[in-house]
Each structure stands twice: as C-alpha cells, then as structure tokens.
C-alpha cells in the first residue's frame, strides 16, 4: 500500500519535469517527417472518416443512435479509444526506450509512463476540440451532463497510468509483451463498443448477458461513459456496479504495478 502511495506522490512532485520532457518523445519520432506532429491528428481523422463511411452510411444506413447521427455518436467514444490505445502502446515501450538514458542519472523513473501520457494528452485535446466542433455542427448542445466528462477523464487517466506502470515494467524484461499487448488492443477495439452500438444489436437484445460481460471491460466503461457525458444519456452514479468493478480493477493494477515497479527500480541495472 505504501508503494502505491509513494509512486503517486512522485508523480505530483515531478509534474513540471513530466510536462517539459513529454515533447521530446514526439520530436524524436517525427524527426524525419515533413508534416511532423500533424500526423498525430491526421491519422485518427482518416480513421474516423473510414468508420463514418463504412458503419455510419453502409452498415447502420444513417440510422439515428440515441437520437443523434452516427458520427456524433462515434466521436466521443472513438477519440477516447484512440487516446487510450496509443497511450497504452506507448507507455509499455516508454521504459525500454528511456531506461538506458536514465540508468546513469538520478531520475524519478516512475514518471516515465506519465510522460507518454502527457504527450498523448496533447493530441487528445486537439481531437476533442475538433470533435466538439463537429458535434455542434450536428446539433449537440452543451448540457449539465457534460460535467461528467471530468469524472470519466479522471477514470481514464487513473486507469491508463496504472496500466502503464504494469506494462512498462514487464516490457523491459519481456519485449514480447508489447507485441502481445498490440494484439490484445486489436481485440479490445472490437469488444469495447468503439464503433459498434451493442445496445441496438439484435443478438445482444436477445442475450443481454453479452452486454453484461462487455461491461466488465474498463475500456467499455470509459468509452460508454464519454458518450453518456457528451450525448447526455445518463449519470455515472446511477450505475454503481460498473463503477465498483472499474475502480477495483484500477486499484488492483495500481497496487501490483507500483510494487513491481519499485522492485524493478531497486535492481534495474540488472534488467537492462
């Protein structure tokens, strides 16, 4: 328990460093690109247009979702998913990429996954801004429900950091873990309701157990929650069960993650 607290404290103590160093990841990745960081926005935008076309116009045939057009329904969940996906994959590699650099200096190693988080967050704000404009264009108007965004945002950060702590440590030792994670995220994409509306699916209507199984998945909790917030569908405190499941998963990940992280740090010279 003490470990979890220590790691949390270290994040807040080093917020300045995290923010200042976040930009270097990107600079280094897009060093030889002409458009540079624009790709971080362009890539999801291309994806969104594909899903909009394939699912919105062909599969759902312009059917309304919760009273809105498919694109409006898609956006809040999809950008959250995009952010979570790139963050989880980035964080799992963050330690491997930087461990050589920090092995010879005094550095709060537990902030390395947070740097990826801070870095990806910049893109998320951009995407969110673009989405809100599109949503306005499709007659979504701000409501009190939008305040829920802050709750789900905190959920998202807590979950991602806890995941990052676990995955980044394991990836240093077993690189395969990153590849595994990559495949797992592919699967998660399809079962987290990023592009499908499970609630209007006929099979799911007959077997409600399917949606209940999907609901356990923390990604679904966040993606669905973001839609609740922006489309004004429901309040987060009305579904206590989902809340309990989500936060216990986060707490478990956090305690385990901080433990293995500190153990790793105590002897990380050996692991690299």
């Amino acid at each position, binding site marked *: 328990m*003490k470990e979890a607290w220590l790691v949390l404290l270290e994040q807040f103590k080093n917020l300045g460093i995290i923010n200042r*160093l976040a930009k270097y990841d990107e600079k280094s990745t897009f060093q030889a690109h002409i458009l540079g960081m624009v790709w971080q926005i362009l890539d999801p935008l291309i994806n969104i247009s594909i899903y909009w076309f394939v699912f919105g116009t062909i599969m759902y045939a312009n059917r309304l979702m919760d009273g809105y057009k498919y694109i409006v329904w898609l956006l809040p969940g999809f950008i959250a998913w995009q952010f979570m996906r790139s963050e989880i994959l980035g964080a799992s590699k963050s330690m491997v990429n930087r461990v050589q650099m920090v092995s010879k200096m005094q550095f709060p190693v537990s902030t390395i996954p947070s740097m990826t988080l801070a870095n990806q967050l910049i893109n998320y704000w951009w995407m969110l801004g673009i989405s809100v404009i599109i949503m306005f264009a499709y007659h979504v108007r701000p409501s009190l429900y939008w305040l829920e965004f802050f709750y789900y945002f905190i959920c998202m950060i807590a979950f991602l950091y806890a995941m990052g702590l676990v995955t980044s440590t394991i990836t240093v*030792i*077993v690189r395969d873990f990153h590849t595994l994670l990559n495949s797992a995220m592919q699967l998660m994409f399809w079962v987290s309701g990023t592009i499908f509306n499970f609630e209007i699916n006929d099979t799911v209507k007959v077997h409600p157990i399917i949606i209940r199984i999907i609901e356990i998945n923390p990604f679904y909790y966040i993606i669905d929650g973001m839609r609740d917030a922006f489309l004004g569908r429901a309040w987060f405190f009305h579904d206590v069960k989902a809340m309990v*499941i989500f936060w*216990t998963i986060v707490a*478990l990940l956090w*305690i385990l993650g901080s433990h293995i992280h*500190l153990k*790793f740090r105590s002897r990380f010279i050996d692991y690299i």
Partner: protein
Amino acid sequence: MATEGATTTLEKKLKIRARFLTKEYDMMKTKSDMLKTLIPFGNTNIKQFWALKGVSFDVYEGDSVGIVGLNGGGKSTLLNIVSQIIPPTSGELEVNGNTNIISVGAGLNGNLTGRENIVMKCEMLGMSNADIDAKMEDIINFSGDQVIKKIDQPVKTYSSGMKSRLGFSVLVHQDPDILIIDEALSVGDAPFFQKGVARMKAFKEQGKTILFVSHSISQVKELCDKVIWIDHGRVVMEGDADDVLPKFEEFQLTYNKKSKAERAKITHESGRDFSLDELREENPGEPEELFQKKLYDQPFTWFTKAVLSLLTIILAFTIGADLKAVPLRTAILHPFSVFAFHWFILLVVILVFLMTFGIVTRKRKERHVLD
C-alpha cells in the same frame, strides 16, 4: 596531532554519511528468472548475491575521495547507491547537497540534434530554462570542434567519441555540490582528457566534494586525497591516498597471479556468504532498522495482501452480481443470491488448500536452507 585532526573534521561539513549499506542482487540467468523476481507472491528459488555487505564511511566537504577495488568488488554498485540511482537493500545513507554522477555512455537520444539533446538532458537534471540558455554556449564549446560543427544535426550521425564528449560536457556544466565520477575521464582523446582533469581540479579548488572511481591508479593519485578500498562488498581500508594506494597495488599484484577460475570462484562464493543477521550480530548496539530490508526489497506486507484479497473479493462479487443482473443492494443483503452456496464452499476449500500448500513449501524451503 590527534586533537588537531579532530577539530578540522568538526569544522568541515558532513556531506555523505553511509552506515552499513548493503545491496542484494538476484542471480538471474534467464528472462523467466527475471520475471520471477518481480512476482510478489510465492517463493522463488533464485539465488541471491550480496554486492555490498555493510559499507560505512563518511565524506566531508572539500574531500576528494577515490574508490578503488577489483572488478566486481562493488564499486559501481556503491556509486549508484550514493548517487541515488538505486536504493540500498538495507542501511542508512545521508547525502547533504545535490549529487551529480558522470559516467561513460550517458544516454543521448540519437534522433534529436545535439542542441536538443543538451536541452533535454539539462531538463532531466532539473535545470531551469534560463540556466540552460546561459550555459548552452559553454557546453557546446567544451565538447570540441567536431561537435560544434555538427551541433544541429541528429546525434546518431556522431562518432562514439563525439557522443561521449557531448554527454560529458553537459554533465560537468551542472553545478552540483557533490560530483561523482565513474571512470568518465577515459572518454575521448588526450587533449580532451586533460581538459576534463583540469575541470575536475577546478571543482576541487571550489571546495566541492568529489567521489571518483577508476581503474587507473595514476588518475586516482592525481585527483584524490583520500581513498576507500573496497573488496567483495566490504571496506578493506580507508584513509589517505598515500597510505592506501601502495597496499592496494601490492594486493592487485598478488591477485593477478591467481588463475581466472580461482578468481571467479572467490567472487562467486563471497557474494553468497553473507546475511543481514550476521551483520547485526557483528555490530551490537546499532539501531535495529539499519539491518532491515527496505520497502523496495520486501515482498508484499500482510496489510497489502489483505487489501488485495479484499479488492479481489469485491471485484468477483460485483462481477457476479452484474452477470446475474442482481441489483447491488439485493446482492449485498443476500450474498448467496449471487454465488450459490456450494460454489462458496468450493472456494473456501480451494483457498485452504492453497494456503496449506504455501505453508508446506515455505517450511520445506526453510528446512532446505538449514541443511
């Protein structure tokens, strides 16, 4: 004479105070061994190796202390602990002032330009932006002509000598109270080496504390007044450079005559021949905490285990309630509406079985150790 010595040490400020530092490593041969060491449950049968076995010393302001010893004697581990890169397994370390470690192969990001790397490294070391701007030119100039020419090109195009010079240059331009140097002066060619030595001497004249590890005894002689000789994780001798260095040289000569296998055997055995209890018994009267493993090297505490199990139970229970579509209030009031009673019994049986299994294996392991 003796009183005079005592007063001078009283005047000087204590910079580093180490008490019974130990460091335990796992002997990890394969990747799966590495994974096992991270798993917080159960007993792993991975062998332990003690790199440091209770090292104590004091370093005062203005001292320049050389640390000498054979390969694998624990010098680098000690430096890493003193510079707070890794924590000790047990013992107490007090460092007054900020430390800065300079070592070979300090990492640079190959995709960024030299200038960006300088800014990034400085930021990582906690320098402010104004400071970085002020020192930028000095840092670039110090690293030599070749680097100046390529400063705005990616570092991956640099030669390895240029990279190390750039890294070294960034580090010597920090302003630490305590400078820790890990064989960094062997970087680069002769002129650069001279520049480095001159810089170190300037640090020394400013009254800064220097800790210096090197294999080259001549370098240690040139820079250090005091020497700590470490062998197999213990301090063999500590004192003025003129007293310790000749003895160390003598020892090195006799050691070099031994065969390779013999040497490896000595190192291997000495690392395992130690326990914290022994250290405690050797030093009665010292506080108990000095000989206890720190949080980092402990397995899960009982409290954490209890919290984890509680969380797991809550999670399983809520998922159960969710899958059966029982409202949470009903589920709490009538827990057996979620889990059928016979499943509950089965769970208890499995838990009891696992616990007895754990206790039995631990007992067996203890017996094994006693044998």
